[in-house]
């Protein structure tokens, strides 16, 4: 009798008709172990056959932050509201790296996995989700480093974080993660047809960083069109909120935060719609 229940339980109906929005989360949940394995693999493989191994996880963002400190802090003399430059840039690069990773990695979902996707079916959404997870883990690792510097500067009395707002950090991550995934899967769905986008995306993300208060605080921008544009930028508010929590300095305007959430949801819904359409037949066009 077990056979009968199983066959009924796993009945699949395939048709040529496409649904516009189909979020089969139940199926994704069945494949949760795959998500975990994908995430593990990302880390396991990245530093294989390197001498420093996992130390790169720290070294990379640290060197970036040092570079930013020298270029933007010491040479360009950007004011960070009294926050020590190195701490400001460590925190900023941590959160931005999370967001940029979410976009960059997801942008290659279809093209870099074409090999596997073409041979076996599993819910394609597992790949973007595991990408977000590994970006989040990377973020946590970087936050350890931020924590060390933060502890030092708090003891020196140079920084006073809003501890209560730390509870909002997961929300910031969720916000940026969903947004990044949304943009990422839109790009990846379109790259199956237009490879140009894949080339553009890393440049675009870099450009986006300069349009987001990462190497400078939002408060440094004088009122005007530029500030409005930067505030409409959906990545700005969650990042300012994050810095408000960690560094005690940041400009959070609730209206713009809500706007950012609206954009995020629109993007992710649109993304899943396009993803749904593409995942069925992308093997024929990739």
């Amino acid at each position, binding site marked *: 009798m077990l056979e009968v229940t199983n*066959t*009924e339980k796993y009945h699949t109906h*395939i048709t040529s008709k496409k649904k516009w929005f189909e979020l089969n989360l139940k199926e994704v949940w069945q494949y949760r*172990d795959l998500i975990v394995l994908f995430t593990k693999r990302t880390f396991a493989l990245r530093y294989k056959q390197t001498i420093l191994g996992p130390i790169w996880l720290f070294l990379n963002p640290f060197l970036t932050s040092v570079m930013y400190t020298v270029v933007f802090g010491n040479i360009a003399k950007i004011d960070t509201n009294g926050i020590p430059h190195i701490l400001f840039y460590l925190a900023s690069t941590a959160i931005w790296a999370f967001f940029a990773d979410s976009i960059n990695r997801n942008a290659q979902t279809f093209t870099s996995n074409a090999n596997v996707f073409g*041979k076996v*079916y599993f819910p394609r959404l597992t790949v973007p989700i595991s990408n977000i997870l590994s970006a989040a883990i990377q973020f946590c690792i970087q936050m350890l480093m931020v924590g060390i510097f933060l502890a030092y500067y708090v003891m020196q009395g140079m920084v006073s974080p809003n501890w209560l707002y730390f509870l909002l950090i997961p929300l910031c991550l969720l916000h940026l993660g969903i947004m990044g995934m949304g943009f990422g899967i839109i790009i990846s769905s379109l790259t199956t047809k237009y490879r*140009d986008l894949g080339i553009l995306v890393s440049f675009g993300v870099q450009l986006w960083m300069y349009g987001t208060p990462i190497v400078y605080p939002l408060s440094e921008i004088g009122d005007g069109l530029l500030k409005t544009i930067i505030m409409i930028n959906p990545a700005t508010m969650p990042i300012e909120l994050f810095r408000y929590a960690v560094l005690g300095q940041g400009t959070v305007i609730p209206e713009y935060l809500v706007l950012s959430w609206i954009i995020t949801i629109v993007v992710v819904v649109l993304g899943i719609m396009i993803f749904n359409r593409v995942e069925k037949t992308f093997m024929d066009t990739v």
Partner: protein
Amino acid sequence: MSENNRQIAIKLSGVKKMYKLGQIGGGTLQGDLQSWWARIRGKEDPNTKIGQNQRLVGQTFMALNGIDLTVYQGEALGIIGANGAGKSTMLKLLSKVTAPTDGEIDIYGRVASMLEVGTGFNGEMTGRENIYMNGAILGMTKAEIDAKMEDIIEFSEVREFIDTPVKRYSSGMYVKLAFSVAAHLDSEIMIMDEVLAVGDMAFQKKCLTKMREVASKEGRTVLYVSHNMNTIRQLCDRCIVLDKGKIIFDGDVEKAISRYTGEINQLCTHYEYTANYHKDRRSSDRFVIKELTFLSVSQPKYAVGEKIVISFSCCVLRAFLDVKFRFETKYEDGTIVGTMVTNKSEDFPANTTKSISISIDTTYLTTGIFSVDLIAFQYDNFGNESYLDGVYPGFSFEIIEDANNTSNLVWNHRYWGHIHLPDVVIVEDS
């Protein structure tokens, strides 16, 4: 076997799959934007071929053209057909890798598909890590994999290397490991595309046994695509033949195979040798092999040991003396098996058409389809061979297993060749 009370495992109705030929979508956003912009302004699409309404890329190809098929639970279904007949496309649709253009598919049960061995294997990871990865991709949970881990390692025969990165594996080990994972999946339906064409003989046999077990004992449904008719014979109890995206035969395995091999090798009992056969025409048209007929059979199919009786005729313009015939025999895959020569020579008077009857002994042939090039030649006064005529291929016939054969020897053509030499005699000690 009443089909009404059997559980349906897979049902396809009117399934079609269309592919576009040529460069898909033009490849660039620019091209598409150009076309779109032209359409908006009501101008001619710059990417259109002159005189055509469709985009240059608009040619299509029906890989599957209306497939209706019902597979019942516990069936082992073989799928055969020439390259491009749509076999792999069908499996791709069933394993949800791509969606059909038209039609509906119902699948009752979980599908484990092996369209390729070792999908998702990563060279940097160890055998064990890859088992987890591969299993998860195929839809197992970690707990399920843990429970089966021992069986998988045992079956794969690579226990010593299980914690070594698979990039250091030999290709055989790689394949063994990958097959083991797929064979141990908890699924109701197994889809396999020619995966057994790898690994050594012993392992191939083991795989077949395992798959048969899966189908007959555990009641799982197996869909198997192969060009190797022997594995189809051993594994399947039903077989379909695909041709140009359509099912042209559905039913008994032997019948399906003969339908398919007949299709490619044109097994017929009568040949008239038109100019196409005489491609290697060196002598003038004075000696021509005209036609050939298999005698006293309805199909050129013979059991091992049976005599093949053939009559063929040659037309000559001048007289030829001491003509002999050579039968260069090839196996169905084109490998040369050996050559037979007529035991005595024939004389041909001028301006005659003469029929010659021959008998071929098949005692030492193995099962399969053989095609024979028939060549006429003679020796001149100095003992040099001179070529008179040849037909390529002259004729084909199939050798099947002798029904009385009691030995359980399954001939392995790939490694043993196509000739079963006389038995080795064990001399009794006196």
